[in-house]
């Protein structure tokens, strides 16, 4: 006889094991807790093992713990320091020296990498065949060669072949380049120089205020203001005026060849030069790629519309394409800047005294407290990266699509 199963019967027949279905371990919620408890137990055991092993090992090797070492004196000198430093200073001081050097090279790197990246990224869209090819060659060459190799190349294959101090390459009588680095004239303050500095700050503030006012006026009345010319006028005019009024309270300290070496002026050591070049060129290639992707993300119709209202090619780039592509570029810039800061550790291959080289390298060799010192070093990189992330997120918010 034709027999029709009820839904309940079908369910009962097709479910293979309905017995355990209601057991607590089959409830996803409880099961989640069980897994997590197991994970927790595993981690606790893991860390307990590591910590007890570490303590044993440290006791056996006679390694001290704690941050006492920071107050003891270092006993070695560094190649370059932004703050006064000598061998009797403490480890805390050398930490600061390394930190400042890291920040310095990161800032230089970020500055030049951004410029290089934008130049070559935009060059990709040039109508000139040669410029376009050069952009491609630049990106594909420097992106695919390890950065540490580039640093070493600049340092020992290029800068090491520079002439000695006696036959330096020179521009005029003030800038010299030789195997010991780049020598620049140094600006020395005289009394009254603070007025000039204040005028520079005032000029920058004035430009911001002016920009705000001009934008507001354009939004209200449609009248444009020659912002660029006015800003440049203020930026250069105000400090110039201050210079004239105070009677130029500066003089230059020129580098002078004495014996085998230069004295006076500022010396930029070859380590810093090669590290800056390598980091900017390497990161610049990645930024160029990001800029290219960003520009490609802007629909073609935008360019066409801009052309049809008669904008020039340069204006199309700066007014239409770049502002829109920044939304795509900004997050990528963020991660490139962060990897630049992390890559600055390659300095250790050539001995530029940034944080990793002096603190996790030389200082660690002397003190031997690996855990504390690596912790301090890594903390700096995390903080720097977070700082970059925060700044770039603010920037990102300012370029994001604003819906009205």
């Amino acid at each position: 006889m034709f027999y029709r199963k009820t839904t309940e019967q079908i369910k009962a027949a097709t479910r293979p094991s309905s017995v355990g279905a209601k057991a607590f371990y089959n409830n996803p919620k409880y099961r989640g807790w069980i897994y997590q408890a197991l994970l927790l137990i595993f981690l606790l055991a893991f860390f307990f093992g590591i910590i007890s092993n570490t303590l044993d090992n440290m006791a056996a090797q006679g390694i001290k713990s704690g941050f006492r070492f920071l107050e003891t004196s270092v006993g070695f000198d560094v190649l370059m320091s932004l703050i006064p430093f000598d061998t009797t200073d403490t480890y805390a001081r050398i930490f600061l020296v390394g930190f400042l050097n890291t920040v310095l090279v990161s800032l230089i790197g970020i500055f030049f990498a951004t410029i290089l990246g934008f130049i070559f990224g935009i060059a990709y869209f040039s109508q000139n065949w040669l410029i376009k090819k050069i952009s491609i060659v630049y990106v594909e060459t420097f992106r695919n060669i390890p950065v540490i190799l580039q640093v070493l190349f600049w340092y020992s294959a290029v800068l090491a072949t520079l002439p000695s101090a006696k036959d330096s390459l020179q521009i005029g009588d003030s800038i010299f380049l030789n195997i010991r680095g780049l020598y620049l004239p140094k600006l020395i303050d005289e009394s009254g120089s603070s007025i000039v500095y204040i005028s520079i700050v005032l000029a920058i503030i004035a430009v911001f205020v002016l920009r705000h006012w001009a934008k507001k006026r354009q939004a209200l009345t449609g009248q444009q203001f020659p912002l660029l010319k006015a800003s440049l006028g203020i930026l250069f005019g105000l400090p110039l005026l201050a210079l004239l009024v105070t009677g130029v309270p500066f003089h230059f300290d020129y580098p002078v060849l004495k014996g085998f070496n230069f004295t006076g002026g500022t010396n930029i050591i070859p380590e810093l030069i090669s590290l800056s070049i390598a980091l900017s060129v390497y990161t610049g290639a990645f930024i160029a790629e990001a800029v290219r992707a960003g520009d490609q993300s802007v629909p073609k119709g935008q360019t066409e519309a801009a052309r049809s209202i008669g904008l020039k090619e340069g204006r199309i780039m700066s007014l239409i394409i770049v502002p829109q592509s920044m939304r795509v570029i900004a997050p990528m810039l963020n991660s490139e800047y962060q990897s630049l800061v992390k890559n600055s550790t390659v300095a250790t291959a050539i001995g530029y005294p940034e944080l990793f080289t002096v603190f996790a390298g030389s200082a660690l060799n002397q003190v031997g407290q690996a855990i504390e010192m690596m912790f301090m070093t890594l903390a700096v990189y995390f903080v720097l990266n977070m700082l970059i992330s925060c700044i770039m997120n603010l920037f990102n918010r300012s370029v994001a699509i604003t819906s009205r």
Partner: protein
Amino acid sequence: MSTKEFKPLPAQPAPVSTVGPVAWVRENLFSSKFNIIATILIVFALASVLPGTIDWLFISANWSGTTEAACVKDGACWVFIRAWSKQIFYGSYPSGELWRVNLCLFLLVVIIALSFILPARLRNRVAVPLFLLLPFISLVILNGRLIGLEYVSTDKWGGFSLDIMIAAASMIIAFPLSFLWALGRRSNMPFARSVSVTCIEFFRGTPILALFFMGSVMLPLFFPQGVTVDKLLRVWIILVLFMSAYMAEVFRSGFQAIPQGQYEAADSIGLGYWQKTMLIIFPQVVKISMPNILATFVMVFKNTVFLLVIAVPEMLQIVMTALSNSNWLGGHAAEGYLFVGFIFWICCFSMSMMADKIEKILDTDKRD
């Protein structure tokens, strides 16, 4: 009535100014004032740099010979590379045993080829397990003690083959691990998620150099007293963890790209979590993540050079040692670094090209 048939005149050739090389040059090199100046400047710069470079690299370079004394001409001394080529590629692995290194590299190539050639069912059954076993098979072959060959300690392994093998071995182990981390990061379990996030962010936020350094100075402290772990093994662990963190992020973006409907469909046919993940989601994630996985591999491959700071004899480290060798003090840094750079460039560039190609092949959704 006669009809006049319409006969068109033969078409005239296009004006010289719109076709052919002249037009191309006009359009691409001299289309505006700016372009004219730029072209002239670039051509001038190239003309002043290129001939000298080519001359140094090839024409007046020294190609043959075995010692530094053979470098008599002004150009590059490629004899340097030639004399050191065995060390550059194999480190100080014993000369009679080099076939073992070659065998491992050959196996790697064969298994990669197999995973392309074999049909899907066999691929999952044969190629994937072989892949996962390959690092261990290679370890046994290279070490040699277990299979009765001459024992070669890990400090003798080196050169470019080490760069390739350690990057590949890290990639293979990092693959399943990173997938777990990515799953953990997406999981609903708060504790598991925070553990995954911490792991991923720690290894992504730390410079690789610092990680290698930790591997060499801190990891030994973590093991029980008396246990010494081989340096290369420690490096391997570090590279695996480092790579897993980056790949986990690659997989995460892969997960996010899978349409929600796929998860729901899998749920609605009654698949459990692991069935759903492994049968429905994983294959799609791997497919769309392939270009990024390759990019991550390129990054890690480039990063193997950083091993020189902890004195692992990889290619660049060996070149640097050779540069300070007392028989080769004539300053061959440029040749050495250019050569290493060239090798890395070829490998990385071809892999990025491959990634682009795979991206285009896999981009099936957008094709009508």
